[in-house]
């Protein structure tokens, strides 16, 4: 019986789950560079979404919050008093760090998806070691990490050192 017709290969409630689940993202066994890139892309993506949801909440205080009815200077001052401090600015620096990484590494993924930066296919030979990313993709991944820290440093300077 072919794989598609094999009842043991069909997803059921018992076998449909991903065995390692989210913990598989951070399990270092067998992780190479592309696997870590996958892990960081997932973690930073979820982190950015959580920040965006919080940002939706704090910006709504421009119009008085969830029960507001229009622009309110006092409401804006209230939320600014809560988020505009050293802790809030540290969060913003981290957000810039993960957003920059997620964006640049995401561009790498899109280019790879459309075949722009894939390495040339080679013959499969014993002992069948995985080839991993091509040089271009590795450079983009390293650039994503480096530029994320540069952007975070700039954000740090603007929020903590620069003229506000």
């Amino acid at each position, binding site marked *: 019986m072919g794989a598609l017709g094999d009842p043991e290969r069909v*997803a*059921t*409630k018992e076998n*449909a*789950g*991903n065995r390692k*689940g*989210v913990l598989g993202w951070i399990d270092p066994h067998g992780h190479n560079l592309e696997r870590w890139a996958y892990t960081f892309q*997932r973690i930073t*993506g*979820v982190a*950015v*979404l959580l920040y*965006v*949801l919080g940002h*939706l909440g704090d*910006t*709504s205080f*421009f*119009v*008085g919050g969830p029960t*507001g*009815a*229009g*622009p*309110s*200077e006092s409401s*804006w*001052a209230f939320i*600014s008093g809560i988020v*505009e401090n050293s802790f809030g600015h540290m969060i913003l620096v981290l957000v*810039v760090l993960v*957003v920059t990484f997620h*964006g640049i590494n*995401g*561009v790498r993924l*899109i280019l790879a*998806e459309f075949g722009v930066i894939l390495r040339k296919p080679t013959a499969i030979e014993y002992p069948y070691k995985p080839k991993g990313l091509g040089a271009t993709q590795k450079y983009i991944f390293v650039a994503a990490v480096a530029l994320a820290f540069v952007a975070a440093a*700039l*954000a740090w300077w*603007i*929020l903590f050192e*620069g*003229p*506000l």
Partner: protein
Amino acid sequence: MLIQYATAVAAVALVAIHLLLQGVLVPYGTAISFGTVFAAYRNVFSVIFLEALLVVVLVHGFNGVRIILHELRQTVDWSRWVDVGTVLAIVVSVGYGTRTILLAVLTGAPA
């Protein structure tokens, strides 16, 4: 995945502009002042930009979570509920953000 890539490309451009306007092109203290934000909501291009940013980022974010959840489990019921939940989450969050924009745009200046 096409929607994920399309929103990703748009998000990279829109988020980059948004971040540049918050501290690089405009001083941070000025950018978050009540007067500057109020003026932004009175500029039609700025409002369109903010609404586009809202939709693109939330669709990309929640669709990303949908992809993660589909990877974790693949039963028909799970997939259906994940898809429905994703649409609901997008509608509710975009709706809340749009409410903020509309209230800021359509109501008058504070007394």
